[in-house]
């Protein structure tokens, strides 16, 4: 099993969720994140002082999938989340050792 971590633009979250549902992904976890890669932040101005905000709001999704699904899901995410500009985000894949369903102790691929 593989964990797919995708950091995307907040404005693209709905589009990505829809695309994932379309390829058959049923479970996901979404986090509100802040960060930056090469994207510059912006400045805010309060009472004469400038503040640089370089941690930009992002959305992070975590999905754990059976290995066969991974490529399809990565494609779906990149298509839905891409704008072509710096700040679109990144996807990371990592190996997962085990998955357990809390409700009934089930283990393995069927849990996903």
């Amino acid at each position, binding site marked *: 099993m593989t964990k797919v971590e995708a950091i995307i633009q907040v404005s693209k979250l709905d589009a990505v969720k829809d695309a994932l549902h379309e390829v058959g992904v049923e479970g996901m976890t979404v986090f509100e994140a802040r960060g930056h890669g090469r994207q510059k932040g912006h400045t*805010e*101005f*309060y*009472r*004469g*002082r400038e*503040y*640089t905000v370089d941690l930009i709001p992002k959305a992070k999704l975590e999905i754990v999938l059976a290995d066969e699904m991974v490529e399809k899901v990565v494609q779906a995410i990149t298509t839905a989340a891409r704008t072509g500009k710096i700040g679109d985000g990144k996807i990371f894949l990592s190996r997962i050792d085990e998955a357990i369903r809390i409700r009934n102790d089930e283990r393995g691929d069927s849990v996903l």
Partner: protein
Amino acid sequence: MTSINSFDFRKGRLSRYCCDAAFKARSRKGSMKNSATVCLTLAMACLFAIGALAQTSGGNAAASGTGAATEAQSARIAKLEQAVADAKSSGDNAWMLTSSALVLMMTGPGLVLFYGGLVRKKNVLSTMMQSFALMAIVTLLWGLVSYSLAFAPGNSFIGGLHNVFLRGVGAQPDPDYAATIPLQTFMVFQLMFAIITPALITGAFAERMKFSAMTAFMVLWSLVVYAPMAHMVWGKGGLLNASLGGRFPCLDFAGGTVVHVTSGVSALVCALYLGPRIGYPKEAMPPHSVVLSFVGACLLWVGWFGFNAGSALSAGALATSAFVATHFGAAAATLGWSGAEWWKRGKPSALGAISGAVAGLVAITPASGFVSPMSAIAIGLAAGVVCFLMVTKVKSMFGYDDSLDAFGVHGAGGTLGALLTGVFASSAVNPIFKNAQGSTLASGLLEGNAHQFLNQLVGVAIAWGLAIVGTVVILKLVDITIGLRVSEDHEMQGLDLSQHGEEGYSWDSPA
């Protein structure tokens, strides 16, 4: 038997009231029948008065025959006069009680929200608590002793102890202060000013002062700085009192010097003495909620009508004049600050707009009952631009951490307003200066009285001096005994937790 003198006096007053009331009755919208009835009743009362006067003008001989009738008539006239006086008093008292409530609202929630939104999230409650605690502490102090120190007769600099524990402060008016409202109303109105003045100072030492030290500081400050300044400008025999024959009559309608200069300058002293917040100026410390500050500023604007128009101490045309000048000053200052910011920075910020409004309200405070609406606009525009420069340029130039710009807005705005009052004050708006014959003298510079500007300078200088000396002494005293600043750990943790054991927002908790 009543003497001729008092009868003359009563007749004179009565006819004036008759004519006034009759005129008002005629011009009021409503049924003709109502107006006619009132006219008729008052006309008859006038006739009785004239009749009674004719009867007694011959001296005692003429009166003895119709003694009983005269007694009855004079009793009726006395009752009528009392009723008319009560009606006027009612209107004035209603407005003054409302004003008192409005001024308290300026502190809570006005200032509470305005300041609360400007600090970091971890200090929101402690900032609010400082102003709120003063609502309680200053009230008790006022009742016990500081009202007396401000308004009881004393010397040129401070009042006496005649009114401690509010002795003698009851339903009877004190004609020197306000002839148509109970002295108790006057006392409670002034109390709200005594509360908000120290609350303004909290903006300078926000996010780093111990709560215990703040309470000690404020008690002493109220006694050593506020009460004397209030006495000098507004109290009987005060050195700067323009209405009651002070040596240097300083025009300060609602507290430009008493409230804003003293608190603003004290704030600067505190900021310099305590030193900057940890991490200032490198670390970013933007307001955690401009939304809260916005709501607070709007409440301040509305409440300020009580602050300025209430300082007319009556509900007549002067209150209206002050109300209007206040409003126009605030509006002009908003545009002044926003305009300057738009030009300099490219964008007019929301925080800038509300700061501008507050700056204008501060500056118009001393002038409000003396200037025309157009002059108010001029004062407001000047305050908006000047305070914008104070807060953006001057503060960073000198490097002091006046966290919430108490000096930049109140100290600078108040000083500017007090000086401009000497320029724009007009006897056409408020004939405050009269010569020995009773004719009106010019008030301000533009009207031809250049000397008044000097008097304003004296008032401002005394406010600055008293604030600086008093604040330094008190800070030193409290520092040696209790210690002023929180520890570094407590400052990093946030004052809500370290001083009050609380968190302002529990949004992060699950469920």
